[in-house]
């Protein structure tokens, strides 16, 4: 013990100063690399967080605060004016935003569920079974990354109009049609993410099941799926997010205000002849917060998917 004290004193030259005052301490702690790191970090955090702060805080302002000569950086109180316009039927410019939230949910949740189910089967085949044409198939599925959405939307529109004219449904204002186009956008990603995950599950476990007399379907259901729950959850959330955020296809395929998903509705409110940024920000807040919180809560699982091309964007 005594020896420890003896040897520590001379190696810590700042120890004396450290007790003297905080400024001295700080000046010793701050070296150039640390200073630059702190500065860059502050720059990044402000740049990232300010727009989101501005979105949420603007949504709680009144029209007077929004339209003033100078921006109000900190709202004096939480004003629900913008939210009332979105949800309160008694409001003179009632937007009926509830129905748009519902439409977004109606589109995103089926997309997520169907994509996960179909991709599970496909990914099992890709990861576990050998078959001719696998590589050609995988490469052509990857082609979706090359084609811009605007290129595909014209033939899709013409194609679905043609099919619809025969069978008797409309291309426009048809949420199931939108879901099918979202499936086409999300399935390749879901397939790749799940196949990569299935490869990490030791195939011996599944082979044991096969030897014990399980069918392939039984093995998928009883062995692979329970082991892959984290991957299934993250794929579900990705596909949900893609459908939830999607703009172009919904913009072209939907004309009826009662069927607008949130992004289209927000665009409509924004382009209203009388600009009401607080309402736009309130609607944006409602659309953004669930996605961001969902992501932050499950970040650990989701991050891998991002680098796997989880979000084509």
């Amino acid at each position, binding site marked *: 013990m005594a020896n420890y004290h003896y040897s520590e004193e001379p190696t810590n030259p700042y120890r004396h100063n450290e007790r003297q005052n905080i400024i001295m301490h700080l000046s010793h702690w701050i070296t150039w690399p640390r200073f630059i790191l702190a500065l860059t970090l502050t720059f990044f955090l402000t740049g990232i967080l300010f727009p989101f702060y*501005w979105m949420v805080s603007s949504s709680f302002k009144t029209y007077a605060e929004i339209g003033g000569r100078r921006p109000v950086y900190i709202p004096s109180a939480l004003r629900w004016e913008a939210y009332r316009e979105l949800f309160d039927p008694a409001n003179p410019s009632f937007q009926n935003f509830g129905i748009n939230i519902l439409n977004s949910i109606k589109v995103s949740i089926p997309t997520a569920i169907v994509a996960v189910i179909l991709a599970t089967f496909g990914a099992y085949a890709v990861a576990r079974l050998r078959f001719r044409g696998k590589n050609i198939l995988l490469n052509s599925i990857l082609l979706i990354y090359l084609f811009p959405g605007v290129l595909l939307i014209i033939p899709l529109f013409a194609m679905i109009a043609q099919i619809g004219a025969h069978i008797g449904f409309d291309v426009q204002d048809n949420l199931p049609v939108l879901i099918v186009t979202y499936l086409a956008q999300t399935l390749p990603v879901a397939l790749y993410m799940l196949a990569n995950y299935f490869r990490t599950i030791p195939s011996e476990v599944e082979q044991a099941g096969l030897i014990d007399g399980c069918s392939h379907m039984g093995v998928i259901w009883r062995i692979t799926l329970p082991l892959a729950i984290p991957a299934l959850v993250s794929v579900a959330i990705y596909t949900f997010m893609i459908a939830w955020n999607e703009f172009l296809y919904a913009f072209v395929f939907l004309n009826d205000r009662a069927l607008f998903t949130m992004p289209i509705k*927000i665009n409509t409110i924004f382009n209203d002849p009388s600009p009401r940024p607080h309402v736009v920000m309130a609607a944006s807040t409602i659309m953004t917060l669930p996605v961001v919180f969902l992501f932050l809560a499950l970040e650990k699982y989701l991050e891998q998917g991002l*680098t796997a091309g989880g979000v084509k964007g």
Partner: protein
Amino acid sequence: MAELINKRIGKPHFQSLRARETRLAWSLISPTALIVFGLVVFPAIFSIWISFHDIRLHNLNDVFHAPFVGWENYSKVLQDFAFKFQGWQSWGAAVTSIVYSFTATLLTLIVGLIAALILNQPFKGRGLARAIFLIPYVAPIVSVAFVWRWILDPRASGVLNDVLIQIGAIDLPKAYLATRGLALLLIIIFEAWRYFPFAMLMILARLQAVDNTLYEAADVDGANTWSKFWYITLPELQYVLGAIFLLRLMWTFNKFDDIFLLTGGGFGTKVLPVLTYEFSFRLFDFGRGAAAAMILLAILIIFMLIYVSTVMKNVEEA
């Protein structure tokens, strides 16, 4: 046929295991394959056909009888004033697209690299910072685009106007997104702001795989931070940087939502995807829209071939 093969192997009653596996695999993957082919690969091929025909709203329900017009749609696009380069005042969609996607991709890569280098340092709250850094990438495009528009609002109550007036940089409020040049620059900055997390994550993953003994050896040799970055980190990142550049360039080049929502394609920001949209859904001239999209795709493919055969080859050799 299957029976014949089975007989030869000597298993008359059973289908061969291999054939069964193939059949199972195809039945498992066919729903996915069907949707992807039906709604991505086939439409892509179909749009080549559309680009050679005259298709408008009135014959949209009867596309297969649309009149064939040869290269007319293409020549219309190439001669359109919104497409052609007409000097430095008016770049046209083709040049704007190329300039915008290259600079935006480069800036995204640089910002992503800086962010990854920061997050590779140990500090308190690193996990939280990393999560926050990812938010722009996962937030819905519509809301972030409109927040940016609201921050860049042309009135004096816009945040950027207010800040710049307060510090005395400008006297009168500016309409940033309605000024030629400035609008394109802001879109490039927006792209970097929104998409740097993708580059950051890929670079970070690679950084954590760099062999630490390289840095230790450099320390022994007395290298400073800069030379360690230049001679160890960058060469180690070369391949991943090349891959991110290609991917992001492709996606940035194809990007429609961001520009459409920020400027609507006005004030020198009309890129090819926006032009395609306008031909198709404003003029309702689908053939011309498809032709514009094919030109876009052609530019993209030409660039990718050049990139893969020069840059990526060099990277592999190094």
